[in-house]
């Protein structure tokens, strides 16, 4: 199937449409909540939680014996929450730092989950195969009921976000201060963490345990590059996440043997790379351009201020000086002289230069900190 066929099929083919809508919603909610994780400097929390959910899936299967996704995801939710609150407990009650606690919970839970998975695979039960789809996800197994469920959770999340917007922002920026204002920060914090866990569990079926954290972090990290406003950042992150979902699904559906989860994550990564390079205010490209421009300006200013020092000793400011004088000065080149003339800061006649009134004013204010050039 080519990409073109895919786009015509999206609207007619039921399965493809379900998967596309599902990954779009998933991308949006993950982008939104991922912004919170990134701003709270808990980027790895998502990774730890998703890995911590694996034993829950296996245990849910062992207890119930069904492959019903909802039951398995309930197991994932419980074990993910246990992991999340253990991390918090470790940080609070021991000398260990957050990164250590995250790494510890992540690997212990994941290791335990893998152990259970291999155990299940060796059981004489034909039903067992398919649990490992939760490792890397399998978007093709998304049902319309799953998508509805995702949509409802996203809706609730939006309502909560809207209601507690001010509280969330306050907690993210200054949790201690929020406490002194009388807000129950534990409650707000638990609310955010619960939604992050919920989003992760929703994504396990599609993207899988291993790659899930990228769904949270990549859109948020990309969005941060483009804006300095929290609301815009969250909206952008949701859009980036959604696009990653749709484009990723499209690419994987139009090629055989490309699993959806990894492709979605790669598309999200492209957003990140693009944002890191091309964002106007924070991007690498424009920063480099600004750096070069500043250096050029500085060279110009240095020459101009040297000239200013000469000119200022004369009564007549437009008194001509020999170009030769400048030879002693390091920053000066023929190019800078020309540029200064273009800006009409100086006039050059033959081998003499003189400063214009405008140039004199500009040079006089050059290093004056009190003048705001807003």
């Amino acid at each position, binding site marked *: 199937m080519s990409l073109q066929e895919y786009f015509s099929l999206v609207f007619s083919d039921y399965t493809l449409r379900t998967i596309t809508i599902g990954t779009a919603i998933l991308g949006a909610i993950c982008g939104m909540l991922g912004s919170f994780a990134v*701003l709270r*400097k808990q980027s790895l929390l998502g990774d730890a939680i998703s890995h911590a959910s694996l034993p829950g899936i296996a245990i849910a299967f062992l207890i119930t014996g069904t492959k019903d996704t909802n039951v398995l995801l309930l197991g994932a939710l419980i074990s993910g929450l246990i992991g999340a609150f253990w991390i918090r407990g470790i940080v609070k009650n021991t*000398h260990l730092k957050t990164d250590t606690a995250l790494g510890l919970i992540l690997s212990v839970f994941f290791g335990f989950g893998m152990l259970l998975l291999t155990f299940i695979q060796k059981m004489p039960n034909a039903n067992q195969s398919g649990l490992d789809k939760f490792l890397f996800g399998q978007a093709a197994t998304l049902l319309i009921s799953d998508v509805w469920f995702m949509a409802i959770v996203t809706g609730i999340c939006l309502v909560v976000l809207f*209601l*507690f*917007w*001010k*509280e969330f*922002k*306050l907690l*993210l*920026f*200054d949790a*201690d*201060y*929020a*406490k*002194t*204002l*009388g*807000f129950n920060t534990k409650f707000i914090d638990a609310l955010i963490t619960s939604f992050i866990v919920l989003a992760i569990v929703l994504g396990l079926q599609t993207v899988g345990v291993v790659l899930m954290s990228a769904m949270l972090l990549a859109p948020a990290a990309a969005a*941060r590059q483009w*804006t*300095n*406003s*929290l609301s*815009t*950042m969250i909206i952008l992150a949701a859009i980036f996440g959604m696009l990653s979902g749709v484009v990723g699904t499209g690419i994987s559906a139009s090629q055989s043997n490309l699993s959806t989860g990894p492709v979605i994550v790669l598309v999200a990564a492209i957003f990140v790379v693009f944002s890191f390079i091309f964002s106007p205010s924070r991007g690498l490209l424009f920063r480099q351009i600004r750096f070069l421009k500043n250096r050029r300006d500085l060279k110009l200013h240095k020459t101009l201020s040297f000239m200013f020092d000469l000119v200022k000793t004369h009564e007549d400011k437009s008194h001509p000086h020999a170009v030769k004088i400048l030879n002693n000065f390091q920053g000066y080149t023929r190019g800078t002289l020309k540029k200064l003339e273009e800006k009409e800061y100086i006039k050059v006649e033959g081998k003499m230069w003189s400063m214009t009134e405008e140039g004199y004013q500009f040079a006089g204010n050059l290093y004056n900190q009190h003048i*705001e050039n*807003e």
Partner: protein
Amino acid sequence: METKYAVTVDDLTVAYNYKPVLWDIDLSIPEGVLMAIVGPNGAGKSTLIKSILGIINPIAGSVSVYGKPYDKQRKLVAYVPQKGSVDWDFPTTALDVVMMGTYGSLGWIKRPGSTQKKAALEALEKVGMLPFKGRQISQLSGGQQQRIFLARALVQNASIYFMDEPFQGVDATTEIAIINILKELRKAGKTVVVVHHDLQTVPEYFDWVTFLNVKKIATGPVKEIFNDDNLTKTYGINYKVSVQQ
């Protein structure tokens, strides 16, 4: 005349992992004073403020504000945290940060409106930061960030102000701006408590002082107790300061 106390601290004890940081602090802060808390590094100055404000849970002790438990009087108390306690790369503007000072009186869910915005703009004006209201906060200098924090506390329109090292790492302009605001607050009858490091400026800026080094060494009017004896007890060395009156 009986002195009215803005804040009373009883038997406050704080410990991190068995090591006491504050030991059995009794402290009464009279209404309307401009008080400095001084002491060496690790003396528990910030911890004292944070446990008064309920940010840190003490293992013992109680705090009352105007005779009632602090929990019930939160709206009377404003807080200026250390500048370094937050991430200034957070995506928000100076005005937005100052608006946060109004959140406490708004309570849950309710959004700030034009009244709150007006108050925030006035506070920005007071600290001389009005031209920077739309700036992304990472693009402010250290002194400007400190003034934004101060403005945020002013918006709370409290009776008691706790400030954690507001003079740390700020330039002369900001220091003067801050001290003028502190004096204005005192003139308006407010009580201001400041964790302070520069002993030289204590007599000039403050009228009340508390010496702290895990235990409370002394508390009282600067004129009476800011002397070599207390400084030596607090810092453990003979710290000579010239007290200029």
